[in-house]
């Protein structure tokens, strides 16, 4: 596709349920990022993948959050036992490269708005 695609665009779930959020990066982009944006705040870093591996997961708030990128392309952010405080827009971004040799532009998806009721 032309840009980073995130599905679903909206997700409403009940407290305690499990959710999966999907990100399709731009083809050929090796670096993939997940961010979380709460109301009135800027995006907050969650995790960064370089290829298939999570190079930096320091932003994941707790062990209920997990992300995978098994083939180095599509990524899934998984949230277990959702809480109302998890309600936010989850943004995915990709870039051609990452790390010291990178510094290329990161392209963002439209985000998934997660509402936990």
């Amino acid at each position, binding site marked *: 596709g032309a840009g980073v695609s995130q599905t679903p665009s909206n997700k409403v779930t009940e407290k305690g349920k499990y959710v999966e959020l999907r990100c399709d990066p731009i083809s050929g982009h090796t670096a993939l*990022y997940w961010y979380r944006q709460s109301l009135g705040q*800027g995006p907050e*870093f969650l995790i*960064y993948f370089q290829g298939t591996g999570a190079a930096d997961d320091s932003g994941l708030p707790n062990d209920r959050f997990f992300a995978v990128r098994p083939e180095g392309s599509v990524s899934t952010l998984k949230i277990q036992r959702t809480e109302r405080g998890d309600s936010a827009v989850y*943004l995915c*971004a990709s870039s051609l490269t*990452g790390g*010291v040799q990178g510094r290329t532009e990161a392209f963002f998806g*439209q985000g998934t708005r997660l509402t936990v009721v």
Partner: protein
Amino acid sequence: AQRVTQPEKLLSVFKGAPVELKCNYSYSGSPELFWYVQYSRQRLQLLLRHISRESIKGFTADLNKGETSFHLKKPFAQEEDSAMYYCALSPINFNKFYFGSGTKLNVKP
């Protein structure tokens, strides 16, 4: 700890007036600074980065290491500049951004 501060949540100016969106940062090393913009119902996109020293859509931003600031400026605002603007910092290894809380720019006709 890294921090990006955008003191203004909302900035309203009239068309043709100068505009300055403030951004201050704290970081122990030499970061790279960016401005991202989000127009209504569109995705977040890069506006400019300090290393490129470009003027994009009439906007410029100069990194002032002494004042740890990276303010975004435009001499004559246009209505189409109305959007959310986020200042962001990236550490030297460039694997994440730290974003400010954003400033909503409203350019009135």
